């Protein structure tokens, strides 16, 4: 079963979506059970994946080595013979390494929580759960795809269910928020598409090219010598154009020897557009594309709108997983395919991360809507991911990935909390509440834990992540020290807005805006415990035993850092 594990993870929700669509409407109470069973199965598979994943010294690291990915599945999907242009080949190519497995695990957990939090949905259930499951499948697909086209397809396909989930089940300004979300992210993916087309034109699959040249009869017989042979011939321009097998394989794209000389993204015979190295343009385009998703200031403006209007479970998915696809995409594509861009623009990435941290936190401080506050805190915390990446040290990059996981868990918790309040009063204005602690003590306890976890108190996962990021940022030669120093301001600011919010909403004498609210403000119910407690346990667990994650990612991360810095330096030497 292990060899189909990743496919199962993608196809179980698709199957469940089909069941939801086919089940007649009078059984609509069953839809949520279908979604729940699918999500539970995914969690079981996720645990299997975790158990079967080889980590530690000497284990396969993935990153830029196709044979070192785990749970690999590879099937031919599209092969088009384009004559002079060679062959176009797209593979159904899945696999995980230390970077992606953490994201897959995070996704299955948050998706399960999302289903539980959708339990009280009453409107148009068929559409809701159908779309939710489609979203689920494309999220998983995005994290495990190793073929750029496949990745892009999942990446794009995510937008559609999300658009409907916000636009139909959202709040009062849902129309505006949903189309804004769609347009922004589509704009980002157009930039990614441009680079993808260019990369496809510029890279070859050496193994398949060897087969095309009849060096061997089958891809399985290709040895490393043959590959380097082919790459040598490619460099000297000794392979005829019609024999070049172009590829969307992201792993091949990380090897600079696979780039055809004198093409747009070529390493040898670089193109220059408008005074800028084409490969650096490629990095920037990918960066912008994924930065919209992360989101990075100044392209973050869709996020507060989308979050405020989205229904609670969708906010959870959005903050918990979708933002991580931005960070993950940056690592998987921008940094690995254009490592010199990562080196060259480290200061820019770091600076934008820093701006996001500070600007997001200041906006959170001034937010009057609890959900908006949490949304801006997401912008601020995702800034740490950029700062960690920019440092290009093992600590920093590891911290960035840790932060993505930790923020996924904590932000899910925070949006659930906002949802708890909204369910009861349909109002999220901070000023409308005070002294909730006396009325809802257990809820208050949960809120305090979640807020402390988010502001990075030791003992919680956020602390580990931020410490790692700062360790990386301070020790990095890539970004100036003042960036790391200024970023600590972000910690102070997040302590400020969280503590101030606790003080305003929960402490003091109980009073709410309207008298009739106080009856509906009951303490947490059992379903809410089921959602929140595991997340609390998880963030504590990861705060106390960071090696659960670090062991998984360490080998891959240090390989990634070495690869990016070394290759980046080598390519820069070519200039």
């Amino acid at each position: 079963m292990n060899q189909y594990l990743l496919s199962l993870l993608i196809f179980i929700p698709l199957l469940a979506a089909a069941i939801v669509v086919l089940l007649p409407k009078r059984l609509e109470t069953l839809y949520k059970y279908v979604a729940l069973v699918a999500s539970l199965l995914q969690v079981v598979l996720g645990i299997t994946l975790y158990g079967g994943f080889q980590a530690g010294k000497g284990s396969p690291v993935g990153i830029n080595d196709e044979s070192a990915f785990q749970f690999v599945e590879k099937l031919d999907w599209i092969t088009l013979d384009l004559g002079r242009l060679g062959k176009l080949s797209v593979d159904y190519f899945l696999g995980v390494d230390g970077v992606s497995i953490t994201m897959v695990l995070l996704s299955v957990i948050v998706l399960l929580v999302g289903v539980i939090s959708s339990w009280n949905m009453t409107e148009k259930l068929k559409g809701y759960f159908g779309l939710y499951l489609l979203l689920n499948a494309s999220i998983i697909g995005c994290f495990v795809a190793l073929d750029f086209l496949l990745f892009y397809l999942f990446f794009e396909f995510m937008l559609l269910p999300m658009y409907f989930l916000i636009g139909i089940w959202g709040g009062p300004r849902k129309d505006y928020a949903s189309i804004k979300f769609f347009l922004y992210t589509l704009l980002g993916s157009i930039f990614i598409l441009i680079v993808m087309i260019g990369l496809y034109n510029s890279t070859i699959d050496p193994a398949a090219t060897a087969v095309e040249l009849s060096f061997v009869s089958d891809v399985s017989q290709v040895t490393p010598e043959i590959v380097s042979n082919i790459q040598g011939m490619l460099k000297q321009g000794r392979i005829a154009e019609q024999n070049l097998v172009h590829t969307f394989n992201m792993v091949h794209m990380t090897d600079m020897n696979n780039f055809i000389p004198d093409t747009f993204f070529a390493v040898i015979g670089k193109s220059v557009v408008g005074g800028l190295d084409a490969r650096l343009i490629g990095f920037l385009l990918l960066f912008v594309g994924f930065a919209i998703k992360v989101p990075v200031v100044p392209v973050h403006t869709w996020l507060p709108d989308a979050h405020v209007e989205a229904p609670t479970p969708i906010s959870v998915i959005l903050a918990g997983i979708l933002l991580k696809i931005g960070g993950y995409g940056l690592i998987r594509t921008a940094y690995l395919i254009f490592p010199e861009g990562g080196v060259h623009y480290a200061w820019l990435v770091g600076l934008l991360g820093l701006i996001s941290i500070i600007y997001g936190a200041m906006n959170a401080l001034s937010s009057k809507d609890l959900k908006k506050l949490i949304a801006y805190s997401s912008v601020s915390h995702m800034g740490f991911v950029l700062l960690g990446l920019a440092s290009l040290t093992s600590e920093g990059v590891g911290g960035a990935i840790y932060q993505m996981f930790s923020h996924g868990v904590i932000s899910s918790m925070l949006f659930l909390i906002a949802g708890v309040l909204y369910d009861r009063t349909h109002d999220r204005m901070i000023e409308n509440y005070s002294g909730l602690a006396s009325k809802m003590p257990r809820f208050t306890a949960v809120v305090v834990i979640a807020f402390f976890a988010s502001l990075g108190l030791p003992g919680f996962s956020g602390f580990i992540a931020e410490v790692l990021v700062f360790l990386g940022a301070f020790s990095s030669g890539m970004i100036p020290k003042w960036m790391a120093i200024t970023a600590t301001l972000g910690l102070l600011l997040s302590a400020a807005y969280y503590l101030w919010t606790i003080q305003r909403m929960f402490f003091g004498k109980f009073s709410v805006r309207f008298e009739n609210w106080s009856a509906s403000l009951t303490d947490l119910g059992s379903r809410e415990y089921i959602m929140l407690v595991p997340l609390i346990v998880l963030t504590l667990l990861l705060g106390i035993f960071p090696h659960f994650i670090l062991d998984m990612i360490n080998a891959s991360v240090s390989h990634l850092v070495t690869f990016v810095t070394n290759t980046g330096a080598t390519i820069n030497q070519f200039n």
Partner: protein
Amino acid sequence: MGSSLKLELSIIQESLSQFYPELILSGAIILLVLVDLILKRKGQTVYVAMALASLSLVFVSLVTQWNQDPQVSLFLGMISLDRFAIIFKVLFAAGTLLTVFASWSYWNKGQIREKHAEYYTLILALALGSFLLAMASNLLMIYLSVEVLSISAYVLTNFSFNRKTSESAMKYVLFGGLSSGIMIYGISLLYGFTGTLDITSGQMVAGLLDQSSTGEPNVLLIIAIIMVLGGFLFKISSAPFHIWTPDVYETAPTPVVAFFSIVPKLAGFAVLLKFVLVIHLYGQSPLDWQVMLTVISIATLTIGNFSALFQKNAKRMLAYSSIAHSGFILVGVVAFSKFGMQTILFYGGIYLLMNFAAFLIVQMIERRTGAVMIEEYKGLGRQLPFLGALMLIVMIALTGLPPTAGFTAKLLIFSALWDTYDQIGDNYLFAFLIIGLLNTVVSLFYYLKIPYFMFFKPQKAENDVSELKSAKENYLIAILVIMILLFFFKPDWLMGYLQNVNFGV
């Protein structure tokens, strides 16, 4: 004298053997008129049956032609037959077939009870004109085909016979007449410069080269070429010759509009492709037509997309969308490569599927509920989730998002442009690529408007949709949508054929 006439006659006679599809169409046209005269049938069934039968025969003969893989010049160099033309003809035949189906259901509840025979005759005549245009290699033949096609189109526009359609038909006639006039003037100038009308002949190329050998562009020659080019751009409704499109599309009968948006347009592209390859002169032309076409394509894309943003009428929006799609297909023309041509054919095929599906849904809603404004689609998706889902997929395909073949088509056509850019290295092509793709984002906004009203807005209470639910068009649309999805997962099933296309030019 006598012997050369005999020779010519024998050539014509031989050519007829390669001319079956067109002969079948011509026969069907005559037969339709005769049947109408003799039987005076009121219903349309008999004419539909005849049209369908003739089109099936056309398909059979096209398949035979394809298998023979011809590369011949027929009728004394008037037309040339190759797989490039055959693929186009297959697309035209498919478009015509769909149009006949759509018209069948459209006129079942319609007003033109008396004129069915004329209607189907004109549809077939327009198809014949497109067939000839795809093959024409002589400027005079091109002109003739354009006229066959246009005159049928003018009359078809007015087939609802009311004030509004008369107005737009009149507009169409005036614009069309003017553009043909200019075109024939350009043709006569070209003849004067080169001494030949055969665009595939060496004499034409030599003549054009000769005129530009001084290095200085011959202004008059360029004006002549632009005049001819204008006629083709008019047919593909590309900017700045697109002004007739929205009015005609808004008022003409919906199946006719669907027909217009596909068959004559693709025919225009077929001849445009041939013509630009000639005037490009293997890159020797003093005026860079690639730049020229890039500008036209950008203008078409931008005007089409931005105008579509403000449309409230569904058919009018689709009209601007079809203008924008002309801009996308022009991207493939700008690529100036074999790959570019293949992707144009691929795009054309997919465009046929998606545009027809879109117009079919619009027609179905218009006929069954009377709704023509996008706003009136309110809540339809909630009442009829199946139809809503079909419409959503079609709109997503027109935008060019996965998982639809609309995405594959855009991906391929822009890959072709990128490939050319990699060869030539002119940076304006890179800018073009980015502008072209960014236009997709603009188009998303208006394409989503339809699903937006269908799903996000509550329905009107009095809306009766039972008729819409049981309409037979649902099946046809579903088939088209399945094909749109299928060609996303298996583009090789279509591209496989296109790889075998020889471009005789």
